[in-house]
């Protein structure tokens, strides 16, 4: 068993190690100018300086990683939180009440096909160049997946559970709180996971265009200064944060949906 577990850990590392080693070898071979595809070691070196200010090779960004990361993270957090609150609340309302669905849904369905990035010009005119347009874009990107999945979760709630709830004497509000919302939780979490992906995508986009701070801004700015090592370090940072925020949601999901563990093929993953 332990041998198998060790093998599993090794299995997971095989592909990343091979990719990094190949990349390092290729960059050092001189087939391409070193500046165009910096070796992983160069990227790590630049990243280290950006992170804690080792030798100042990243100049103004030296030791600035934490601030840049927090700038991006706070935008994602703010936009995602608003999207979650509104998406879940509206989703429950639309899924539960036919009346609300008729009044609100057509408008939302017309707005939905518009790609969030195409809102950038309006976001800049409305909110200026700062946090607000980025938060607005993050909100737009995360809102629709959360909304649609919540609606789906509410609509597919087993009617018999509602009957059981009505039988024990629950009012409509109680049925929503104690039956419909818990029953919709698996779908809501699916929406949150898709939403957090869009949230990072849109933060970075907004920072490239409409904001003067954050990981996306560093990425774009380094591109102008031909610092591809820093571009790659920024890409890796964004990937890492995206992974960590998804992990946070998955951890919350495993706690909330622990009752699903033995009922589905690979529930709670």
């Amino acid at each position, binding site marked *: 068993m332990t041998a198998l577990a060790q093998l599993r850990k090794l299995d997971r590392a095989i592909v990343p190690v091979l990719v990094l080693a190949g990349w390092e070898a290729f960059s050092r071979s001189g087939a391409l100018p070193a500046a165009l595809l910096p070796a992983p070691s160069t990227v790590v070196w630049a990243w280290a300086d950006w992170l804690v200010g080792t030798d100042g090779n990243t100049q103004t960004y030296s030791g600035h990683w934490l601030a840049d990361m927090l700038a991006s993270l706070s935008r994602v957090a703010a936009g995602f939180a608003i999207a979650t609150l509104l998406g879940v609340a509206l989703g429950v309302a639309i899924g539960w009440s036919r009346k609300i669905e008729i009044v609100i849904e057509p408008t939302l369905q017309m707005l939905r096909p518009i790609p969030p990035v195409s809102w950038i010009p309006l976001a800049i005119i409305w909110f200026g160049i700062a946090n607000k347009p980025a938060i607005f874009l993050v909100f737009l990107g995360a809102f629709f997946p959360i909304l649609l999945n919540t609606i789906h979760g509410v609509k597919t709630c*087993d009617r*018999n*559970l509602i*009957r*059981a*709830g*009505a*039988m*024990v*004497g*629950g*009012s409509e509000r*109680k049925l929503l709180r*104690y*039956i419909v919302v*818990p*029953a919709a*939780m698996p779908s809501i979490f699916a929406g949150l996971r898709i939403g957090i992906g869009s949230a990072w995508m849109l933060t970075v986009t907004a920072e490239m265009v409409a904001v003067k701070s954050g990981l996306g801004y560093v990425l774009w700015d380094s591109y102008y200064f031909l610092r591809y090592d820093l571009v790659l370090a920024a890409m890796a940072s964004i990937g890492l944060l995206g992974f960590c925020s998804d992990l946070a949601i998955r951890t919350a999901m495993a706690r909330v*949906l622990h*009752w*699903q563990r*033995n*009922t589905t093929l690979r529930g709670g993953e």
Partner: protein
Amino acid sequence: MATIDISGVSKIFTDKKRNADVTALSDINLSIARNEFVCLLGPSGCGKSTLLNMIAGFEQPSAGTVSVDGRPVTAPGADRGVVFQHANLMPWLPVWENVAFHLLLGGGQKAERRARAQIYIDMVGLTGFENHYPSELSGGMNQRVGIARALLMNPQVILMDEPFGALDEQTRMDMQTELVRIWQQHQGTIVFVTHGVDEALTLGTHVAVMSARPGRVVEIIPIDLPRPRDITSPQFNALKRHILALLRGERAEQERALA
């Protein structure tokens, strides 16, 4: 005084897609007194579940009235506990929270809910499974949770819709014995829907035999056999023969009408 009074009840389902009306029940009259255990027996599709759903308040009659304790039924309520064909438990709640679901919706304190739930968990023989989730229990155990949930509300009336239909023979017989014991100990009126002649005769103080579409009550037979009932006794078999003849006669009549 009758606890449940069903007078002149009909139910017509309109099938919009096929543009046809289906008469599920036609002119049902049935009076059920306090502490009676009435089995609604009939072939599938005779509307016995529909009748039960109308007493529960899930459906409204097209004509006639259903009243419980003199009040007409308009909506589901905690005075009528329902045990469903499939347990219909909340899969995200452990056994004890499911049993005390009525108190959770009423806003009861956790300690009080836990203590009340325990009484009924012990009563249905699930001691030790309080913190299990429904998915971790067998069908029979889930059905016991459903019964405990209905009992905890201390309802005037318990409505059961083929609750043992999905269980194997052995478990079903155990559950029947258990249910009779709980009914005798707990007191209360039970309406029990079944398509099993043996089940109806084992459980009921009365058996209401229903005919297939449109559903009607053919005969209400009081069962005066001593408990626990011996399903091999001559009296039991005489009643069974009578009921089978009723059901078979119905079918013969239907076939004649179709021919």
